[in-house]
């Protein structure tokens, strides 16, 4: 079934010309990259990193600044921006985080996220301050929505592939081991520091490239993207899907992206409803939407037992 959906999504824009739907799907791809890379560090590795959305935004800003000020072709900027962001993240977040227990990482990374707008205002000359970075060049000349669509889709598929590979690999198992039982993992010889740095680097890299792509598409980027609303929405995408239940995060992202758009008509009530949605989700689906599949399995299992006995 997943293959069918994939096929539909791939051929869609070739046959239909509905730019609104294309745009929505593009958004979905971008946020899916951010959310699934966040799930990697939050759900699989169990590291309470709350600064992920900041990585996305920094990646976007860097890509825009590089494209505007340096004679590098815009198409490479997201990649370059991604590399720089990753380095910055590793130095400022991952390294301190190595020594801190769970809640401190959460606080510190959240604070990082919340301090960036002020930093942006101070570097006004490069970043455009509170007005944001404008007139970011598009990825290449004569680019159209449809190109962005396929680039984003390609990037998403690549991200999912990478994440899938990591989860199945020994690194992925190391993440999970550290999350569930750190002492035991250490006793097995798993180097906690190395693994933590790895997971920060990978997730930050993916998110920041997505940020770069996003920035070039919208042609501008502002500090509002760092607002608490974006942060909470993205966190809900991850949470709703189920932390550490891999494909679940895609469900969560889809739900939030479309709900956000759907509720846009509500005006001011929108964020209220979204906040309430978060509360509702955490209370009733603490393990994410994938719980529904669990319950289905249980129900099917019981039915099978009844039939057999």
């Amino acid at each position, binding site marked *: 079934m997943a293959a069918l959906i994939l096929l539909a999504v791939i051929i869609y824009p070739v046959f239909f010309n509905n730019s609104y739907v294309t745009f929505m799907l593009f958004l979905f791809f971008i946020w899916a990259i951010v959310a699934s890379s966040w799930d990697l560090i939050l759900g699989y590795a169990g590291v*309470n990193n709350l600064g992920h959305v900041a990585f996305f935004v920094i990646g976007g800003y860097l890509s825009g600044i590089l494209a505007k000020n340096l004679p590098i072709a815009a198409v490479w900027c997201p990649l370059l921006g991604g590399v720089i962001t990753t380095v910055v993240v590793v130095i400022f977040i991952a390294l*301190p985080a190595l*020594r*801190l*227990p*769970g*809640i*401190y990482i*959460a*606080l*510190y990374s*959240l*604070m*990082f996220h*919340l*301090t960036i707008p*002020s*930093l942006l*205002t*101070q570097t006004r000359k490069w970043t455009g301050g509170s007005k944001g970075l404008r007139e970011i060049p598009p990825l290449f000349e004569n680019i159209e929505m449809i190109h962005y669509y396929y680039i984003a889709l390609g990037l998403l598929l690549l991200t999912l592939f990478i994440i899938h590979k990591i989860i199945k690999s020994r690194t992925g198992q190391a993440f999970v081991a550290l999350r569930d039982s750190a002492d035991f993992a250490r006793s097995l010889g798993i180097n906690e520091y190395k693994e933590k740095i790895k997971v920060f680097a990978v997730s930050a890299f993916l998110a920041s490239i997505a940020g770069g792509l996003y920035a070039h598409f919208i042609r501008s980027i502002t500090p509002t993207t760092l607002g*608490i*609303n974006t942060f*909470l929405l993205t*966190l*809900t995408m991850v*949470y709703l899907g189920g*932390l550490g239940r891999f494909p679940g995060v895609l469900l969560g992202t889809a739900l939030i992206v479309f709900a956000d758009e759907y509720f846009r008509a509500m005006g*001011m*009530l929108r*964020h*209220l409803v*979204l*906040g*309430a*949605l*978060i*509360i509702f989700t*955490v*209370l009733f689906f*603490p393990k994410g939407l994938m719980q529904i599949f669990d319950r289905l399995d249980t129900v099917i299992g019981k039915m099978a037992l009844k039939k057999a006995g």
Partner: protein
Amino acid sequence: MDTVQWGVESTVCQMTSMILSTLVSGIIISSLYITMALGLSVIYGVIKIFNFSHGLLAIFGAYLVWWLLSRTGLGYGWCILISAGIMFGIGIIIYWSMIFPLLKHPNWDLSTLVITLGLGMVIENFSLIAFGPGTKAIPKFIKGSIRWNDYSIISWHDLCTIIIVICMLLLLKYFFMKTKQGQAIRAVAQDMEGARYIGIDIFKVFSYTFAIGVSITGFSGVLLASKLSLTSSMGWDWLVKGFVIVVLAGLGSITGIFYAGIFLGISEAFISFFFGIIWVPSFWFVAFLIILLFRPEGLSSAKL
């Protein structure tokens, strides 16, 4: 030669008065921050959850007072008391509906984090809708200031605030040390299992600790709002400062809050005076980073 001497003396005089006035503002800010961080610390110290709706609850407490002041003819003091009471009730409701159900699951630390974030969002937008987006102002308690030689040393309102904060700290100390409920709270904070053995109902203690925390937070919002203005988006800034203070104090320690608040408040006053307000958020971030690198346990490891 005489004129040079006079020049030097008056510069020294000016410097001293500048430093003194910065110090005074520092103490005022400290007292506000101490109150604000108290609610957060009490909740964390006992229940071990971090209430991310903290800043927004403070704002809401202030909004309640504003609303009561403008809609009813009640006196200032009554409005504050009613607001504190309502916040207490809200705290109980939040605890039983949102926190208690989550405590049973193994990932309660992350889920309470997310749910309080969501709650913060709801409160922020609810306040926006219910009270309107404009900046509100709560009047100061008393007008005028203490003067000396044409210099205004400290306004009566600020002095009042400091006295109120000191009174509140003493009251809390009395509550925790002498009353049965207060001692129960301390028992749970120090040793949850032990408290259970002697028959203390942990979840009930959690509920009124949470409610007290929310009530204090709402009250701190009133204090803060009477000095600065009131907009719903300030909640998140206060939350951030709150948690830097709480971490510096040592998570769960109330005596630590006192020292941390003083240190951070006075530092902020000096930074903002000598470098400009624009550097204040960066200062908080750097301060937090330094604390986490060198002493993440904070100043005091006392449990309440």
